[in-house]
């Protein structure tokens, strides 16, 4: 006798299965040392009072160290999402496995969401665990803990960042028709937000008549912070900056909340919609 399973329970089971499958791959074998080096190394280094940091970088308390560590998370963990997820859908589609899954008596929406949560958990779990270890390292160096609110904000923002990246990666993976385009689209979107965003900001500033020759002027800073709302990396930084004092890049809280909700809903909803329309 088969009893009906609730969609939430089914989603959870499939997400965990996907997470386990992703986690036990060679890609994670490559990624884990990078995460360990970047997250633990940066938190250890930035919290060392003898470390020589550039003049404008201050790390006087644990949260400021975590903020600086977030720059390394932006580079390594988001790259991890790309590494694991760039072919998350396209590989199944090309190999024909998607056809087998689509034949099964399950809603495509649940199947798509399980892919998304599976990918998200694969990189988020080690990132968060390493971040907690980083907090311990910071305590060893500075003899100070971040406040609970700061820690929760850091974990929340980091988890959200990786969720946004997971949605984007799977979305572009749905659009990819072969392995080549999957790599190009996956790495391309990562490059756009991680490397090229400053150029995009400068271009937009020029278009809107904002002086880009002096990036420390107030008008440019205000403009760039608004443009950053349209980038997951930018929004992540803005969320963390909201806890930092003496920073000129302050945006109203409603803007941050709206951007966070939008980034959490729009790419993931769009991904699930595209996934349900996919032809296996």
């Amino acid at each position, binding site marked *: 006798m088969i009893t009906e399973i609730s969609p939430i329970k089914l989603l959870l089971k499939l997400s965990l299965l996907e997470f386990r*499958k992703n986690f036990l*791959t060679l890609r994670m074998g490559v990624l884990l040392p990078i995460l360990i080096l970047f997250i633990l190394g940066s938190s250890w280094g930035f919290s060392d009072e003898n470390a020589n940091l550039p003049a404008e970088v201050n790390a006087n308390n644990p949260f400021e160290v975590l903020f600086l560590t977030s720059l390394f998370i932006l580079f390594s963990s988001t790259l991890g999402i790309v590494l694991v997820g760039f072919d998350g859908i396209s590989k199944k589609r090309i190999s*024909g*496995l998607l056809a*087998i899954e689509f034949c*099964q*008596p399950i809603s495509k929406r649940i*199947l798509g969401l399980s892919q998304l949560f599976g990918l998200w958990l694969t990189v988020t779990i080690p990132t968060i665990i390493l971040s907690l270890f980083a907090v311990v390292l910071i305590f060893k160096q500075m003899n100070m803990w971040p406040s609970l609110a700061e820690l929760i904000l850091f974990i929340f923002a980091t988890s959200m960042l990786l969720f946004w990246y997971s949605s984007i990666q799977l979305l572009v993976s749905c659009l990819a028709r072969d392995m080549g385009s999957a790599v190009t689209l996956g790495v391309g979107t990562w490059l756009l937000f991680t490397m090229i965003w400053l150029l995009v900001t400068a271009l937009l500033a020029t278009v809107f008549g904002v002086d880009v020759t002096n990036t420390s002027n107030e008008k440019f800073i205000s403009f760039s912070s608004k443009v950053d709302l349209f980038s997951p990396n930018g929004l992540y930084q803005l969320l963390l900056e909201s806890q930092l004092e003496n920073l000129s890049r302050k945006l109203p809280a409603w803007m941050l909340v709206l951007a966070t909700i939008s980034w959490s809903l729009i790419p993931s909803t769009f991904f699930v919609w595209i996934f349900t329309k996919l032809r296996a």
Partner: protein
Amino acid sequence: MEGSLLELKDVGFNYRLYSPKIINPFFKKEGLGIEKISMRMDPGNIIGLVGPNGAGKTTLMKVLAGLLVPKNGIIKISGKLIDNNERPLWAKKLIGMMPENINWYGTSTPYQEIKKILIIRNMNTRNINFILKQVGLNNKANETLNSLSQGMKQRLSLACALIGNPKILLLDEPMNGLDPVARTAFNQILKNLAESGRTILISSHQLAELERVVDSIIVMHEGKIIEEGKIIDIKNKYKIHEDLILKFKNKVGNLRTIMSNFKNESLNFEELDFDGFVQVTIFSPNKGWSIDQKMLILEHFIDNCYTPYDFSSPKITLTDILSAVTGLDATKIGMNLQRGYYRVEEE
């Protein structure tokens, strides 16, 4: 029409192919597909779906499995009308599909893949070994997909289709990559499944392969069903019968006289000289012939002091049936398919 598990009426589907234009880079044009397909599948039947490459077999299978949404027509499963846009889950439970050439690869194992399908279907994961044993993969359960041979991958695909004991099985080119021993075992599995009341649609472009297991066949060409029924009935309808081939070490003298003396029947024949042997092909009469009649011809040659060292009657192939049904020359059937593509290009 009662009792039918699956029924199609005038079902059509066309692929939308990217055809970028300067003014519209996302322009899609209508490509090939299937047209006006009407068929039914009754419980316990094994139906063969045959046709050349590009005939629409896989497309039809995908439409039946709910992977492709038909643009028109009616589909009924267990007598109930199905919404073409969204296949209900109860209907999906009744169908097991084995798609063509699934490329199982990666470090996952057959055990894990079966487990995932069982979880999706909300079934007990303790049955994994039983399912793998059904297809002879129990000793490969924990090996990586990368280490499986093509035949084993086919078995894994079949195992996935069998999960949940679906009433309708759709098997797309299931024999690809299977060795002769596995094929025999596979045929036996199919017969057992049909005996237990399941309906099986099995596609192939190898008619001889299907002949041993199917009850009837559906012949497809250029997206349409051009003939259906029992193989023997189709052969009789189009007067397609096996010829006789006799091989002799030396040339047969007065062959015409020998043939004209045979039971007052006028049989057409052909004599070909090869290096080291002579091949005499006796074309089948329109009404076909029995084994006894073939033996009589053999005896007739022996009585006339010509004993062949080889005697055979090659099986009818899909090409023979297609050329008979379409009226096209066997060598032009593939070309005709190409014309189909060109026609779409012109549109």
